[in-house]
């Protein structure tokens, strides 16, 4: 019957569309990540190699920006986690170093992953790190305390109206999970 053939052809087309849309749902994941990296959306800060710093940036001593450091534990994370200094006054284009302190007061070895976030979010893409404890998972033995280093540089192209940046690190327990990225 010609009608049945036509129906089957229509069904094949529509099923194909549905399958493609299922794939599109997954495609949104890399699209979203690329979009956030380009725009700095959701406070995703950047990374830069130390060797490139001198070539890319020139310090701007006429301008001072305040950086506030905040440490936060995600639900169920028992470590003591705090920034070494609460605020720093920095010149854009110059490399600075500071550190956070993490202490594992539990009786077992634990592994943590720190996730950065920046406010205001539109400043995030002007904040670059050459070294960060957030680049890797951080193991601490039972009772161990450790200084976790951070080296960063603020891009001089940071919009003029931004005078204060807040950098938050949230600590997540990832013991027993392998690094996925």
């Amino acid at each position, binding site marked *: 019957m010609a009608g049945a053939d036509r129906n089957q052809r229509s069904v094949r087309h529509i099923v194909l569309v549905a399958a493609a849309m299922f794939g599109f749902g997954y495609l949104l994941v890399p699209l979203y990540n690329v979009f*956030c990296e380009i725009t700095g*959306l959701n*406070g995703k800060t950047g990374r830069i190699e130390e060797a490139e710093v001198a070539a890319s940036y020139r310090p701007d001593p006429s301008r001072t920006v305040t950086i506030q450091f905040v440490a936060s534990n995600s639900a169920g994370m028992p470590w003591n986690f705090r920034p070494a200094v609460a605020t720093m006054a920095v010149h854009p284009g110059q490399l600075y170093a500071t550190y956070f302190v993490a202490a594992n007061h539990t009786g077992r070895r634990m592994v943590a992953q720190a996730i950065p976030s920046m406010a205001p979010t539109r400043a995030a893409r002007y904040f670059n790190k050459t070294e960060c404890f957030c680049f890797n998972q951080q193991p601490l033995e039972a009772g161990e305390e450790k200084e976790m280093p951070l080296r960063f540089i603020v891009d001089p192209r940071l919009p003029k109206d931004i005078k204060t940046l807040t950098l938050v690190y949230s600590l997540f327990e990832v013991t027993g999970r392998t690094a996925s990225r």
Partner: protein
Amino acid sequence: MSTATATYDEHHEHGPDKGLIRWITTTNHKDIGTLYLVFALIMFFIGGAMAMVIRAELFQPGMQLVDPQFFNSMTTVHALVMIFGAVMPAFTGLANWLIPMMIGAPDMALPRMNNLSFWILPFAFTLLLSTFFMDGGGPAGGWTLYPPLALQMGDGFPFMIFAIHLAGISSIMGSINVIVTILNMRAPGMTLMKMPLFVWTWLITAYLLIATMPVLAGAVTMLLTDKFAGTSFFNAAGGGDPVMYQHIFWFFGHPEVYILILPAFGIISAIVPTFARKPLFGYSSMVYATASIAFLSFIVWAHHMFTVGMPVVGELFFMYATMMIAVPTGVKVFNWVSTMWKGAMTFETPMLFAIGFIMMFTIGGFSGLMLAIAPADFQYHDTYFVVAHFHYVLVTGAIYSIMAATYYWLPKWTGNMYDERLGKIHFWLSTISVNVLFFPQHFLGLAGMPRRIPDYSVQFADWNMVSSIGGFVFGASQLLFLWMVIKAIRGGEKASDQVWEGANGLEWTLPSPPPYHSFTEAPAIK
């Protein structure tokens, strides 16, 4: 329950099986339409019972009846049941009953798949409701299932996810059937621009379903693998982002709200001309308005998440895109009002519900415009104002249209008139109580009462009590509706073939009730 048995004796070999097996094995569009509608009605009362628990707990400030976890599972499952179990199956049921009769087709294009797509649903909702008896209880993180909260659900979590998968598969199959039927099975001469608007709106709705349901399936699958397979789509510790879930979810979620309302536009566009005794004003503009709403629905999703921390440019884009939807929607309301203008109107129950729809859906539309204003939304976000808004568009919008449709086509389906006096009582009781129920929630929301919380500060007490009283009356009025439907199925004054004096369309040329197999030969289209 049998509504289509009048003439099967003449064609005994084609008649339905006897008893229960008829309903399990049936491939007849009228039987399957009935199954969908009965299922939707059952789910409407289950979801309604949950709403009664919510309103009872909120009757007074303080914790009265249920514990907070159970309260939150009530709000969550109420939404899931009403959206996926009541409104969507009711529309699919109407599509099954009406589309073949409206376009002069003998049945749906894919009858066996039709049977399967219905029979998946009872299993889906058994899975969903069974989570209440598991360790950790039912889903309680809101129907949007935002991680990480949704991932904290107990043993029932995979059951809920699979329930959503099944309901999604069911509605995708239903949509495939609708599209194929409309594209391939129209009677000769029934061109696209001659189709009744209910058929048009369903065609567009079906495309929306095909495009968005798989995205929801993907999103909940990601939740599932995040919980059990160690992926990190939404887990910040693994490099994922919980906000991304909101983007993916609302990419489905916003078209979904039009899935819940476009068929309603089709129903109202059928009823208003009948009782105004005038042809529909601006038929082609209605078609184009529906298509534009469907298109715009894909580019406005982030207005559900203005407060997540978007750049100003993003907020402006989504704000203006959202406001643009008011234009085609305004065209529709204008056309319905113009259809009534200088018409010879009568106010039988379907018309009352249709006019109630136009009035109250518009109220919901206006509160939607208020919510679309990004800077103002920071105040309204997650308050009872949002609850009032979407209940105006879903209860007095979608549900009212389904009730209007039931009153309008029930005499055709059963061959018996419903009780007009009771129908009018049902309308007025419902309309007064639903406004007592939801209108004060606007005030509560503007005053800052958050949604999804079982307790509230005392300054919200008065309007909550008023709202709860409205809720109980509205809930009880629906028992009247149930009684009327049962009464019309069992008997009553016989309906003529045309049923309504001003009714136009192929379904009214069939006998009431229509034979089990109708339009086995294509009708002539003028």
